[in-house]
């Protein structure tokens, strides 16, 4: 292809490719044991985030709000915040409360540290941890919110601790199914580890037992406190900026060596994790994982010719975008457009290395919207897309199938169960990808051949 779309510099954002910053923080706190989240702002913010999470996870996701109105917006939200904390404590009885700020309270200039300190003092609270996180949406997306909240948990709990043999595992926003798969892999290597955050049981509850307002599961605060004594951190955060990196903080402040890796999505990315785990555990690849790797290779061979027809658009959060671009590249379906609503300092550089040998360079869009993604995809003759439900117009307007991964998935069921990690998850994704291409092919090849040859009925 000769034409390469240069994204027009425009002010208006047309069909958003990202969520807002506090949303990322909310998901993190849902992955902490016995935690509840409070959004300090107007009522709408918490309701939107609940709705988005409920539609994706298909679980009740309670998020309290300080429900500020005009008066508090002018005179300060202290009274409402304190009342909100009272009520959250009374109804939910949490051990941990995460407070996310919003655009409104950041603009008001609310000093959360002070408001929380006064509250603790006034109420004599000693047994509940109240942790504010600055999540001002006009300076970041859910991606930054997720990292910021995770890092804040480490700052709050991780004090100098005794050295131990455990490993820290820090994840970006992935599905509960992916979390469970990564935990299984660590278990197979016999490693002791702390995963942060861990919403694999809180945002994907099996049916049965008594319904609980704060679902059981999540990383315990004792385990977070011990992260500073771990012998290594594995962080799936190649694109994580330094100032928000929990792993970097643990390395700099507590001398825990950091292995910053791509998500184990894709053969080569998963191989990198395995190499690290072999080194840390002193064990070689467990038999079952070796077989799973073999099945993946077998599947890659079986479908490589079909995948060669793929001209994918990959979009979403930077860490996922990198991982899914890797799968596409290693299977011969080089992405034609790679896009994120988030502005990342790292993504473009990482992609340049990944795509160094590609026949055709993709259009890379950061801090972008779906109007730009759609234009670029059209010019580049994209025929498949990989990303969240926001890309639905690619199908509606252009007939491009979207393989749903990431967050949010609100127009299909089972967002919480989408598995792409590990050799098994990679193969599951690859089959979905290839089958979408095959579906298009079988639907259209008879007509296309006839059209190409000018064959008409009876002629």
């Amino acid at each position: 292809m000769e034409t390469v779309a240069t994204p027009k510099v425009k002010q208006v954002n047309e069909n958003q490719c990202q969520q807002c910053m506090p949303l990322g923080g909310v998901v993190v706190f849902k992955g902490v044991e016995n935690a509840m989240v409070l959004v300090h702002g107007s009522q709408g913010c918490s309701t939107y985030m609940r709705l988005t999470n409920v539609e994706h996870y298909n679980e009740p996701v309670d998020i309290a709000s300080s429900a500020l109105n005009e008066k508090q917006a002018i005179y300060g939200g202290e009274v409402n915040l304190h009342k909100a904390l009272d009520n959250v404590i009374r109804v939910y009885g949490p051990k941990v409360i995460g407070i996310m700020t919003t655009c409104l309270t950041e603009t008001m200039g609310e000093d959360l540290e002070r408001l929380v300190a006064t509250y603790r003092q006034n109420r004599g609270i000693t047994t509940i941890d109240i942790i504010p996180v600055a999540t001002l949406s006009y300076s970041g997306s859910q991606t930054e919110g997720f990292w910021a909240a995770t890092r804040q948990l480490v700052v709050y709990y991780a004090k100098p601790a005794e050295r131990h043999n455990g490993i820290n595992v820090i994840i970006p926003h992935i599905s509960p199914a992916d979390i469970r798969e990564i935990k299984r892999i660590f278990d197979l290597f016999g490693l002791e580890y702390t995963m942060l955050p861990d919403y694999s049981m809180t945002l994907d509850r099996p049916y049965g037992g008594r319904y609980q307002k704060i679902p059981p599961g999540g990383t315990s605060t004792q385990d977070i406190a011990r992260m500073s004594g771990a012998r290594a951190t594995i962080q799936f955060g190649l694109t994580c900026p330094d100032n928000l990196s929990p792993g970097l903080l643990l390395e700099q402040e507590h001398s825990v060596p950091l292995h910053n890796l791509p998500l184990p999505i894709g053969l080569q990315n998963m191989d990198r994790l395995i190499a690290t785990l072999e080194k840390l555990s002193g064990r070689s690849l467990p038999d079952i994982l070796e077989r799973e790797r073999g099945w993946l290779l077998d599947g890659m061979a079986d479908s490589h010719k079909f995948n060669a027809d793929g001209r994918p658009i990959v979009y979403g959060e930077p860490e996922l975008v990198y991982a899914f671009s890797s799968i596409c590249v290693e299977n011969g379906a080089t992405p034609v457009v790679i896009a994120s609503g988030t502005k990342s300092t790292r993504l473009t550089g990482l992609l340049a290395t990944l795509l160094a040998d590609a026949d055709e360079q993709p259009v890379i869009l950061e801090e972008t919207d779906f109007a730009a993604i759609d234009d670029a995809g059209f010019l580049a003759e994209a025929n498949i897309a990989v990303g969240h439900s926001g890309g639905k117009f690619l199908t509606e307007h252009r007939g491009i199938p979207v393989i749903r991964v990431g967050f949010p998935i609100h127009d299909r069921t089972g967002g919480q169960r989408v598995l792409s990690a590990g050799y098994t998850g990679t193969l599951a994704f690859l089959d979905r990808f290839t089958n979408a291409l095959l579906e298009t092919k079988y639907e259209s090849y008879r007509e296309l051949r006839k059209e190409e040859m000018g064959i008409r009925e009876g002629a």
Partner: protein
Amino acid sequence: MDTSSVTAEGSACISERQNSILTTGKSKSSIHCADDSLAGSVSQRACVFCGARVVLNPVTDAAHLVHGPIGCATYTWDIRGSLSSGSEMYRNSFSTDMKERDVVFGGEKKLATCIDEIMGKYNPPAIFVYSTCVSGMIGDDIIAVCKAASERHATDIIPVESSGFLSGNKVVGYRAAAIALMQLIKPREGDTVKKTWKLNFLGEYNLGGEKWVVERYLREIGIEINVAFTGDSTVAALKQAPGAYLNLVQCTGSMHWVAMSLEQEFGTPYLDVNFFGAANTAESLRKIAQFYGDAGMIRRTEALIEHEQARIQPVLQKYRKKLAGKRAAIYVGGAFKAVAIIRQLKELGMEIVLTGTQTGKKEEYDNLSTLLDPGTIIIDDANPAELEKFLLEKNVDVMAGGVKERVLAYKLGIGFVDHNHDRKDGLAGFDGAVRFAREVYVTTCTPVWSQLKATGRRG
């Protein structure tokens, strides 16, 4: 408050919310409602901006531009299941994507640029510009920006004053939308709109094509719809609104004020109607025919009702056999919807044991209680903890409500009927009544619940 003694389970009811919950027949006092949401209570309400956007968004050929940080636009993109017979412009979500520098230095210039970009790319007949928490807080003068842009482009650029913090109650947003609509349809000085025999249909959003269903009935009896507010409407059609002979008002929460304003400004009378359920549909059609007072029309109306009822009643009876005696709960946005659902469920022989709304007014609650048997719980602005408590206590079989309540019901092993903005199936008119009954039946009587109960969630 001694927070350290709070049990892990907490208590479902916050004492300050006691007056927002009452039991029919037991209490002489009236319900506390139309308040701001209580801080820390997990309200199901959204915000002023959301209220305004759901009312205006179905205007199909207008562009909807949200002046604020990205989240407000993301969460309301394509928010309603409203269908269009023409333009799809309304399904896009435009945002000024305010960043830190806009918050510091003001966002008016960026807003003006964004309006220019939308006009340049799409040239829509109108743009609705919504203010949000942040643009309101920093004092951006959207009225002035819109006025200047209207002159610059000779197009209606309509400000919608919907800063989220103005109230947690969507009704305030409905009013902001109503004011914007009145501004749009006001004829220019010297212009008049010719009066016709047609009618306007206010509070009809064409969810799942519901406006088209009613339009078919009205056509059959000899009346044309001038324009609906706002389902499947266009800017040009809305401007013809003053030419109507009659205004029908369906959704009371959002449109009574508009009806009264139209009566004041253009002398058009209005009628309250309700097309949810067969009985309501028949009653509404009769009311309309009576209003026109034409003998032929009245005859055609009776004929229509007779053949439609004869067609659907046998089907409804089949469902009634399966559903009689089942226990239902209703928790929806407004009282109008609650009343419609109560009537339909009772027609299906079901018992209503719990009902409530996000935004009901005192008179509406008084009216609700007259429809209900003694002992029914009525609840304003419920939180999930309260809903859970009463769903279990009242041994509910099926609940009707919005997306956020759905997952809670399922966790408790209770059926759920979607009666929200986002639904894809029309529930209006005679066929809508059948579709509603079918949905109640499939979710109440699914074989899934008996299998879940065997596992024992509700013990």
